[in-house]
């Protein structure tokens, strides 16, 4: 009951097409896979040596992006950031250029099978972006980063102005008595109601809003630095070979906290813990000198002992 079959799909012809396709697929796989794996593993056919050579990788990232890349003097079509694959091992001179920026040049050695990463390249501007913040003449300034403010001191006019960090919202905030020379530094109190400025022998204090100003004349001291104490009424003075404390009022006398062996000791005051750290030398009996770091918790040692009373007694002496 079975008879000759006509050609239908699924018959000999379509199966022959399928067989051809199947073998083509096998050939594609057998030929393509080694090439793909060679590429993945970083192998490249070196036309000079006529053999497969293991290449290296190079990653170039710049800040800002978009720099032209010159490889051995030849401009590449891609810009940074760029990963250059299949670089034959050897030394290359790379130059990165971006308009209005200093170029970056380096001799880079590419090793076989290795990745060389240059991802922190900064292309600095030829002329940095400068913005003038002050509006009037400025003698010196103080930056209050926490409150996003800048204090501008005009010694001649005897005023302090304030703006934000962009130089906007200017306002006059205080008047100052001038020192006989330009101050070494100036510092804002923790409550931001006072600002002090000092030179070697004088400390000026400006009380902001309502404004008033005093000058504390300390001719016997050679002031190197001044720190606000946390109560905003006292300061720590770092003088030539001494650490002293001073109430900020006219006629107040500094009291000596420590006499130091070392000249110009390094002092750090931590307002959070009200602790003073300083660096001083110690002479041993053997005659040898040791450098030490000391710590004083001011709250424990002084503030609890009624500091005001201590200073008063000292002044009476």
């Amino acid at each position, binding site marked *: 009951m079975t008879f000759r079959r*006509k050609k239908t799909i*699924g018959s000999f012809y379509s199966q022959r097409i399928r067989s051809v396709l199947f073998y083509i697929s096998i050939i594609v*796989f057998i030929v393509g896979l080694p090439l793909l794996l060679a590429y*993945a593993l970083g192998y490249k056919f070196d036309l000079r040596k006529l053999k497969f050579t293991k290449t290296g990788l190079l990653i170039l990232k710049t800040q800002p992006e978009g720099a032209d890349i010159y490889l051995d003097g030849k401009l590449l079509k891609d810009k940074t950031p760029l990963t250059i694959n299949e670089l034959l091992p050897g030394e290359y001179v790379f130059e990165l250029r971006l308009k209005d920026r200093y170029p970056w040049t380096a001799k880079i050695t590419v090793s076989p099978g290795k990745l060389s990463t240059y991802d922190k390249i900064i292309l600095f501007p030829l002329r940095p972006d400068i913005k003038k913040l002050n509006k009037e003449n400025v003698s010196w300034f103080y930056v209050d980063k926490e409150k996003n403010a800048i204090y501008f001191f005009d010694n001649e006019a005897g005023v302090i102005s304030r703006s934000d960090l962009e130089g906007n919202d200017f306002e006059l905030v205080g008047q100052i008595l001038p020192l006989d020379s330009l101050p070494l530094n100036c510092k804002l109190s923790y409550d931001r109601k006072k600002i002090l400025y000092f030179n070697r022998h004088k400390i000026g204090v400006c009380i902001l809003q309502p404004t008033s100003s005093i000058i504390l004349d300390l001719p016997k001291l050679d002031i190197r630095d001044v720190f606000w104490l946390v109560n905003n009424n006292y300061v720590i003075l770092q003088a030539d070979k001494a650490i002293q404390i001073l109430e900020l009022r006219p006629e107040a006398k500094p009291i000596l906290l420590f006499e130091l062996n070392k000249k110009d000791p390094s002092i750090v005051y931590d307002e959070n813990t009200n602790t003073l750290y300083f660096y001083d030398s110690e002479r041993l009996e053997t005659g040898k000198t040791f450098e030490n770091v000391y710590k004083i918790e001011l709250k424990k040692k002084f503030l609890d002992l009624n500091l005001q009373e201590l200073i008063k007694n000292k002044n009476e002496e």
Partner: protein
Amino acid sequence: MKNKKDIITRTLEIIPGAFSWGILGVVFLLAFLKPIVCAVVIISFDFYWIVRTMYLTILLLIARRAISKYKNKDWLTECRTAFACRGLDKIYHLVIFPIYKEGPEILRASLAAIKKANYLKDRIIVVVSFEERNPIAHQTAKILEQEFGNEFLVYLTVYHPSGLAGETNTKGANATWAAKRGKEVIEGKKIPYEDVIISCFDADTCIGKEYFSCLSYNFLTTPKPHQASYQPIPVYNNNVWYAPSFARLVEISSSFTQMIESMRIEKFVTFSSHSMSFKTLIDINYWPVNMISDDSVIYWKAYLFYKGDYKVVPLHVTVSMDMAYSSNLFKTIIMQYKQKRRWAWGVENFPYVVSRFLIDRHIPFTKKIRRSYHLLENHVTWAIWVGMITIVPSLPILFGGIRFNQVPIGYNLPRIAGNLFNITIATSLAWILLSRTILPPRPPDVKWSKNIIMTLEWVLVPLILIIVGSTPALDAQTRLMLGKYMEFVPTEKHRNKQK
């Protein structure tokens, strides 16, 4: 103490899952210990997958062309006019519908499609076999008998009793019951078994007009027609315009898979609704009554019976079935997952077939090896491919350490794997275009804009791959490996939205 046969079968049950988990486990370990080797394995697999996808997509195009070519062919005239088909007047078709819970609204369309078929109705015997435990079976049967009782040579309603010795609650048990009742009818009418072609259809199977003619033509023109099954292409068109995107994409992909399989004759195995010689069915003692994957096991039973000289003839006509979906997206995903897991449970064929190959002395050894390999490779690949092209490529990058990331393959792996994945996805374009060609006409109550949705929804493919791509297969293999055997859960049929 288990006997030797049990131990062999149990070992064979473990093999597919062990391979799948073994491959994934080895790749995972390599990512830590030998990331470069791991990367080489990943790139090799991904490239293999691309070549395979391209190859299969071309096969799909050829299969699709074949369906188009024969779509409007008058096979009955072909049978009558061709001198080759003089046996047509002898042929009878026994059609069985094993039914579980499906109601008359599902079956009516299936039976109406047979009624409309371009074939002699007095040559068609229909057996509708309900599960006796289904409380609405008698009611449904009565309705259908009233509508179709006089449309065919014989229309028979039977009820499959529960709890027969050796049976489990599977479709195969019901189908076997139906076939045996059909046999009684055929014997009563004194029709020789060899003149009968049996078609076992799911309840929702709506055949095309030319199905029986095409089937008869192929039966009559195939050398050794009793040593072949006849497999139509299932398309899930019954409710395609109403199904949610997720279900539609999954089922269209399933149709495409079947089209591709129809081109790979040497691997082609029966699936879902199919036909075969009734004589052969009796010779091989019907469908298995205790296995879920009865549709494919029937092929292997025949293959073993005929000592390897058995094949599946692709019928390039379609049968339309229901897409599985539920009332909301989550339930649809769960339903699709369970359906795919049931299909993936076809992995039970591996121990079934190989254990019989071991005792067979007639099938050539190379043939046994090839068929065993195809079975194993098919299921293992199914279980691992999504993981291998989506998750695994990131493992050596994540766990390979600084040294791996500073060698060329460490830099190239994500790019190569990404591009290969994109090419795989790009083949979806071909699938999108093809999907448009297998759609039935848009029903009047569906808006034109649905066409746009049905094109754009293909962007969901990566998500679908992750949910129902490999996971159901891995799930099924793990269950088989652990001896936690699945029970048959029929897929819920939905046409409630269709007007």
